[in-house]
């Protein structure tokens, strides 16, 4: 019996209905085959370089460094990837896997819409049918991304069950997959869900950290002192951290969405406020009540508005290898505006959580120390929401 596969310490596992088990095992077997297949890897490498635009820049944020007066700050520019976020790294890998598995249709959940847009893009490129499930609340918050997905040929299903946000979109995509798996792959968007997804998504995202290490070696000849990334499910953070896990001198800092504050019920700070549970196929930490009812979480950022966290993050937190800090809406919006004005880079509101954390800790560090902040996506999609937040009316 292989009861303990796909575990990160206590966390992880494969808690899914029997109907889906063969489909998930099929993905597991296919991935085991292709991850070591040179032809698959070279095809993926070519897509990453010639389509997604990798490697992404590691940019020395000189003005921000001077302004904060402490550690030297580098920004890992995942926002410059095709489709505007790190999500493309994972979907190119999974869509290629879908093709190799003989699937002709992909389905995916999306929160902010970045993963949906990336999946729709990869599907268009590879000639796959694509359907995206997105909480009704998020289709309203991110109307532009919805239309982008439709432009790319995907069908967008607004999800009206539950809290109508990311977790409900995941529920609905799982339900859809359980009803049609012969020709369909569920392209999961983060390092979460049942095994093997946390592993597959981490493997396709770990290129972020590998590039950071190599680029920083070339520029500074040393390792960073800390790597900072925002965490919802945690894919850009896991991608940024993974390469550095053995380098124990490097602090790994995940920034979770504290919404209106960790003591206000309107937050999504899973590590700070969550407890251990089993949901969406994995044992991990979740925001929930004493009876295991999943809490309706909140963040200004649709991409971090998720009541759980990937199991490997839960494990890194437990072992102390990574630390996780809450960042509020206010702090994130302030950082969003700060980076826009200071460096001329408009970050995604998700990534702005990591920028806010860097702003807090950089001044207390020495000028010889180096912080790398992953800018997981660009902020164009958030401009309307930030205007609303500031009470600015930009549409009639």
């Amino acid at each position: 019996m292989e009861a303990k596969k796909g575990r990160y310490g206590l966390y992880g596992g494969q808690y899914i209905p029997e109907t889906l088990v063969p489909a998930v095992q099929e993905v597991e077997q296919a991935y085991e085959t292709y991850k070591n297949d040179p032809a698959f890897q070279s095809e993926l490498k070519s897509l990453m370089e010639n389509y997604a635009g990798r490697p992404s820049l590691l940019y020395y944020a000189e003005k921000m460094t001077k302004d904060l007066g402490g550690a030297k700050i580098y920004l890992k520019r995942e926002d410059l990837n095709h489709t505007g976020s790190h999500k493309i790294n994972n979907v190119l890998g999974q869509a290629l896997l879908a093709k190799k598995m003989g699937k002709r249709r992909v389905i995916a959940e999306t929160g902010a819409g970045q993963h949906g847009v990336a999946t729709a893009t990869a599907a268009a490129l590879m000639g796959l049918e694509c359907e995206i499930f997105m909480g009704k609340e998020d289709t309203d918050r991110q109307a532009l991304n919805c239309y982008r997905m439709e432009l790319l040929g995907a069908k967008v299903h607004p999800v009206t069950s539950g809290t109508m946000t990311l977790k409900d979109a995941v529920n609905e995509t799982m339900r859809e997959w359980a009803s049609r798996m012969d020709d369909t792959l569920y392209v999961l968007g983060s390092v979460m869900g049942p095994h093997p997804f946390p592993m597959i998504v981490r493997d396709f995202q770990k290129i972020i950290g590998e590039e950071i290490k190599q680029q920083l070696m070339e520029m500074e000849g040393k390792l960073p002192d800390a790597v900072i990334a925002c965490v919802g499910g945690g894919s850009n953070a896991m991608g940024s951290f993974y390469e550095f896990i053995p380098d124990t001198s490097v602090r790994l800092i995940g920034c979770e969405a504290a919404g209106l504050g960790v003591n206000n019920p309107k937050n999504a700070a899973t590590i700070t406020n969550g407890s251990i549970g089993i949901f969406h196929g994995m044992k991990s930490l979740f925001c929930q009540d004493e009876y295991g009812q999943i809490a309706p979480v909140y963040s200004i950022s649709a991409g971090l508005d998720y009541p759980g966290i990937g199991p490997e993050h839960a494990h890194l937190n437990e072992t102390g290898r990574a630390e996780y800090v809450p960042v509020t809406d206010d702090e994130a919006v302030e950082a969003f505006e700060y980076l826009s004005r200071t460096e001329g880079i408009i970050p995604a509101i998700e990534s702005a959580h990591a920028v806010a954390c860097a702003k807090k800790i950089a001044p207390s560090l020495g000028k010889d120390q180096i912080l790398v902040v992953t800018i997981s996506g660009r902020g164009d999609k958030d401009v309307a929401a930030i205007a609303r937040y500031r009470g600015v009316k930009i549409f009639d």
Partner: protein
Amino acid sequence: MTRIRKAFENKKAFIAFVTGGDPDLETTEALIPQMAAAGADLIEIGIPFSDPIAEGVVIQAADERALRAGTTTDKLFDMVKRVRSKVDIPLVFMTYINPVYTYGSERFAKRCAECGIDGIIVPDVPFEEREEVNGACEAAGIELISMIAPTSKERIDMIACQAKGFLYCVSSLGVTGVRSSITTNIREMIDHVKKVSDIPCAIGFGIATPQQAREMAAVSDGAIVGSAIVALIAQHGKNCIEPVCRYVQEMKAAVASAWCI
């Protein structure tokens, strides 16, 4: 012989599902003995969950109603304990792993036994993860009900060999909910089970009409009906007892008539 096995002795079983606490606990408490009197051979009581990923829209809505009405796992235990003194048929809980796990699997199973629950169905715990709850169930003397699906195929052997109580055979892909027709080759699935085990097989997902129930029971040991009952509860609210019991009688008669086929 356990109470669950007895429900299948010398007859085809009609298994009825209700979401506990929908529209409120008082109604469920009154409904269960009446359903038993109307002919239900086994009743599944759903512990409502915020995110029931194996359910279709009808039971999703019931879970939301029950949670809004303030239903909790502890209140359901108390209710079942009161109901147990009024009914002899087996009662099983159907819920998701998170409410069980956060309650504490041992504590949950022990409390089930104390309150007269005979078994539990946890659809998001597949065979490979069953130790999450199975040890606790065995220690408490309740049965963890296994499920097979149309996709199970060669997995059926190992699942059926370990199955306890009865085997929940999922009729169709997808989630719970009424279907106009069931296209899976159920007979083949059941034959596969019977080659390796004498576990009673009951078919669920998609059954709503007496004709469907009769057809499904004819090729198995029983039929499970959830969404069709929950839809009546949604329609009639607190006044659901009479229409639900009328429906249960009709369905029980259809299932019973499959005995002679």
